């Protein structure tokens, strides 16, 4: 047996490995930087303030790269379990956590807001004794409260998805169906209709809301403007091409039906507004 000075070999190996890795890291910077910049540009920035709640819940790991989506998904399932138990406060905070961790999927925002604005008032009214027992005014107050929270969720979602017609439409739906604020609904349906990708329903809803609050002239003007933009297959009023013997495609049949329906609507409004026949719209 012999006493030797410390064996330096593992230390040397370790240092060499670290040095080689650092050199590799630097050498690869030209490859890494552009790729990282491209990825970074797409990552929604994490808001550290709102994340503090999340960190307490042991989901720190969930914030790392690809794990984020997974952690959010699992929390979402937890939220749905809570939803089935009609546990309003727990569901609400769980949903909040989900959208904080992964604000990318629209799905989370929309469904969160719907649960809050549509399901929770029902739970609360039932918990207070049911629709027969709870006074009407109290019921309205509850619905309004929940709708406000749902709308706030969607408002926050807009900061991540500013051009989503779906978000505007969902907000408008809440005003229409829950708070019965048709004026606000009209404004939001119009916004939805103006976003790219919207299918046309929001535009018609805008006119319907205006009608509901008696603003017929505005509804009429809006419909005329919309009608002008509608595709009109051969044979429909206003189409540049005359009807042919060729059968229409599925798409064309749908378009023709829509155009015809809207024209009928316009005629009804002309009737309501008492417009003389000579001022009636000519497609």
């Amino acid at each position, binding site marked *: *047996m*012999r*006493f*030797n*000075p*410390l*064996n330096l070999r593992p230390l040397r190996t370790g240092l060499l490995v670290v040095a080689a890795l650092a050199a590799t890291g630097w050498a690869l910077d030209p490859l890494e930087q552009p790729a990282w910049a491209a990825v970074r540009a797409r990552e929604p920035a994490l808001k550290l303030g709102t994340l503090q709640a999340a960190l307490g819940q042991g989901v720190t790991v969930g914030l790392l790269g690809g794990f984020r989506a997974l952690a959010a998904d699992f929390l979402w399932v937890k939220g749905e379990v809570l939803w089935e138990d009609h546990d309003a406060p727990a569901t609400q905070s769980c949903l909040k956590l989900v959208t904080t961790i992964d604000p990318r999927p629209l799905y989370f925002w929309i469904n969160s807001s719907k649960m809050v604005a549509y399901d929770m008032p029902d739970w609360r009214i039932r918990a207070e004794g049911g629709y027969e027992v709870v006074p009407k005014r109290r019921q309205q107050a509850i619905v309004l409260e929940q709708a406000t929270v749902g709308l706030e969720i969607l408002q926050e979602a807009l900061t991540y998805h500013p051009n989503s017609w779906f978000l505007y439409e969902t907000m408008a739906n809440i005003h229409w169906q829950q708070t019965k604020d048709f004026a606000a609904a009209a404004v939001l349906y119009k916004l939805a209709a103006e976003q790219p990708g919207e299918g046309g329903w929001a535009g018609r809803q805008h006119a319907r809301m205006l009608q509901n609050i008696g603003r017929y002239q505005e509804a009429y003007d809006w419909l005329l403007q919309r009608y002008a933009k509608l595709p009109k297959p051969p044979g429909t009023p206003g189409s540049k091409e005359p009807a042919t013997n060729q059968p229409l495609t599925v798409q064309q049949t749908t378009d023709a039906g829509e155009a015809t329906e809207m024209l009928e609507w316009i005629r009804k409004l002309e009737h309501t507004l008492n417009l003389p026949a000579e001022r009636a719209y000519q497609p």
Partner: protein
Amino acid sequence: MPPAPAPPAAVPPASARPATAAIELRGLTKDFPVGLRGVKLRAVDNLTLDVPAGQVFGLLGPNGSGKSTTIKVILGLLEPTLGTCRVFGVPSGQVASRRNVGYLPESPYFYRYLSGEELVRFYARVCGVPRARLAARVGEVIEWVGLTGAAGRRVGTYSKGMLQRIGLAQALVHDPRLIILDEPTAGVDPVGSAEISAMILRLKAEGKTVLITSHLLAQIEDVCDRIAILDRGRLILAGTVAELVGRRDRQALLVETLPEAELAELRAWLAARGRTLEAVEQPRTRLDQLFLREIARSEGQREGRS
């Protein structure tokens, strides 16, 4: 066993026959770090040894005397702290030094998920046995070690003795010139041990060099040409078996049991020539021989019945 013509003192110095040595160890020392603060355990201490080509060489010593460590250095699995080691002239640190070496580790354990045949085939391919000869060669060594019936079974199901045999097969599959067997008979029954001894002698007849460690000294004595004894990493004795254990000034005579009167006559006859009868003993069959004989008879009966 060939008679030893040379007197004990005349072991030729290793340097006198460099070309024939299969393994050359020069001042080999191996320290293992144990515990903290750089305390070392010297497992092999300044070992200088030659294993001549074409011989069976026994490396003996008590547990922990450094036999396995020496073998690992020879195979390049451990790096010597001091000294050098060459195999057929190639330093054992180089991959090329292992080209002509077959190795059976002590208490071998192989890939459990392979069958015996797959295992041997894998090692054969690793050692570069040409594809054309692969199947034939694998079958040959498996038969050689007597595992043909179990070759299709997973190695994980093998018994201790079967593992030793399959280990021997993988050590031999590429037809190496040097075969190193670390306790090939550990856990093997006497029949198996005897078979392994026979195999070693066959290898020797083919001109191979065999390095073997074992605690079965009777077996070592039967098969080895030379032995070296280690103790705590140091070489304490080396030489041919005949030199080391043969006694040339005594003889044993084996005769039918003599009546007391005839024995007295024999004593007188010897005394007349100035000699004495030193011992009269009842010879006993060695237990291993008895075992072998009885097993052979039982097997013979079973075969006769069936």
